[in-house]
């Protein structure tokens, strides 16, 4: 029962009994309550006219970093005896210090500040309308309302810095970079020799080959080093995501984290990188270079979430046109058992594929440790997973089985020996 109804019914009871029994004393007894109630009603605020501005020290932050939020409210209406303002925090954010609400007395034109610090998980966090309750001095007739103040925070994933991963796709871009292009030209690694042409530097002349043939001079060729196209595909299908133990972050967060680290490493090497988040929808970042592209990718990863979308349950509809032909594709996916044919087809289409697969079996086994018959279940799940991975290995796809409790860098370099090998396209195989 709201508190005002208690005093209302007590006053009504006293008056009715007083009138019924024709007792003036009982009606007198109700007077303090009636005057209290009347004063509350008389002093209850009319229309609340608040102008509230929101200030944040950053709109884009790294997940877990503190964000200072300040709200400044000005009363543009009548004086308010007591007002309660609460900034309702979006889900995925946690208050760190200060308070996101305030209770105050506000005269006309007076200002009030709400100052607090929050931390937020990866994602796009939109602030809800502010909850405002204005009341009379006795809080008998509080008026609830909301004030819309736009506020949004974009929390990007934390980038775990990893060492450069040398890739070697079949096709590279024509600009100098770190990737060996399998073409002769200027570089550091010996590639072959050809006949001397006018203008070749003398220090490139292969004198041993020239000594064997008295009439011709030969020039050393070096393997040209260019930049490459790297496409990162993050699997956001709900059926491949695995939830952790109570409150632990899901496996998808690890996928996002490693995708951010990989894109950062490729971009640092000067490569052209694109991103596709495939699952709930198809969020994409078209190929690009440099810090601006890094920001675009991080923003896209910040908003990535898993979800169910029937047409995108399988990898059949991967929009391969987003990625240049014969480029390097890095697929970050826990993999489902129906994915092998599509991945093999992708390999056959000429892409060099590297799969970074966060191990869902080990992840869930950790979360369910201590449950009955878990060891048998894990063993069976591991057999199924190994069967799938072997099928992919046999097709020439390089798969990194990453147990997420290990640093991603360790798994990447252990699996690739510091080098992602160039796989033979499946179409060349018998």
């Amino acid at each position, binding site marked *: 029962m709201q508190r005002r109804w208690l005093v*209302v019914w007590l006053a*009504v009871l006293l*008056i009715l009994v007083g009138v019924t029994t024709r007792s003036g004393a*009982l009606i*007198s*007894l109700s*007077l*303090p309550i009636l005057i209290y109630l009347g004063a509350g009603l008389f002093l209850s605020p009319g229309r609340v006219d608040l102008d509230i501005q929101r200030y944040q020290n950053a709109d884009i932050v790294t997940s877990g970093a503190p964000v200072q939020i300040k709200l400044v409210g000005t009363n543009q209406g009548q004086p308010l005896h007591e007002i309660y303002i609460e900034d309702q925090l979006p889900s995925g954010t946690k208050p760190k210090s200060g308070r996101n609400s305030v209770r105050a007395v506000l005269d006309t034109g007076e200002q009030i500040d709400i100052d607090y610090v929050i931390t937020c998980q990866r994602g796009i966090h939109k602030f809800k309308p502010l909850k405002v309750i204005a009341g009379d001095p*006795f809080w008998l*007739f509080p008026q609830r309302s909301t004030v819309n103040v736009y506020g949004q925070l974009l929390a990007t994933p934390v980038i775990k810095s990893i060492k450069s991963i040398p890739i070697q796709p079949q096709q590279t871009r024509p600009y100098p970079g770190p990737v060996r292009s399998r073409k002769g030209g200027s570089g550091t690694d010996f590639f072959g020799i050809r006949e001397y042409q006018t203008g070749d530097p003398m220090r490139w002349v292969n004198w041993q080959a020239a000594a064997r043939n008295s009439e011709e001079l030969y020039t050393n060729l070096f393997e040209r080093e260019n930049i490459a196209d790297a496409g990162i595909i993050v699997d956001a299908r709900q059926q491949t995501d695995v939830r952790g133990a109570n409150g632990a972050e899901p496996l998808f967060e690890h996928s996002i984290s490693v995708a951010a680290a990989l894109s950062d490493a490729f971009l640092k090497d000067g490569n052209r990188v694109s991103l596709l988040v495939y699952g709930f929808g198809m969020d994409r970042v078209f190929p690009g270079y440099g810090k601006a592209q890094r920001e675009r990718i991080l923003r896209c990863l910040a908003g990535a979430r898993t979800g169910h979308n029937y047409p995108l349950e399988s990898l059949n509809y991967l929009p391969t046109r987003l990625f240049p032909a014969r480029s390097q594709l890095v697929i970050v996916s826990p993999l489902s058992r129906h994915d092998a044919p599509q991945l093999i087809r992708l390999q056959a289409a000429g892409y060099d594929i590297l799969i970074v697969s966060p191990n869902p079996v080990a992840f869930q086994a950790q979360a369910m440790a201590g449950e009955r018959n878990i060891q048998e279940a894990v063993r069976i799940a591991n057999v199924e997973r190994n069967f799938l991975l072997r099928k992919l290995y046999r097709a020439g796809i390089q798969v990194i089985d990453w147990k997420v409790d290990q640093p991603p860098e360790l798994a990447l370099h252990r699996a690739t020996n510091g080098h992602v090998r160039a796989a033979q396209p499946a179409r060349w195989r018998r």
Partner: protein
Amino acid sequence: MTRSRTAKVLVASIVLSTVTLSTAYASAGYYTVAAVAIISGLVWLLDHKQRWDHLASIMLALFTLSSAFGYWLPLYMPLLVLSLTAALVAWDLDHFSRRMQHTVNPEQFERIEKQHIQSVLLVCGTGLLIAEGTLLVRIQLNFWVALFAALLVLIGLTRTLALIHRGT
């Protein structure tokens, strides 16, 4: 003003309400009821520390009904009016202190507390004075005037309730 100021006024109101009610009953020889009133007052004081939900509301209802019941015994009415008013102040301050529990800004707290205590004391004090004053007034009404007054009161109450409903 400090946070303890609300607590002081609250405790004083509970004590005043209890003492006046028990005195009114004890002076007419109803010692058992007086003892129950004292125990109720002590429980209410304990609630100030323990923060039991709804106890303040139950106590206000109890003290109001006890004051009303005292009219038929008959007890000394000015004491009962004082008890009821003090109970109302205590009930209000109990809710106020709960509401202000999480207010951390000391300046704002001080300002709200000062304004609230002044308001509640002023309004309840005025109510008390008017109620005590009306106890001294004696008017003889014939049946038809009393009936008219009763109808007027009923209409007034229903209008007030409608206004309260509309206000929310």
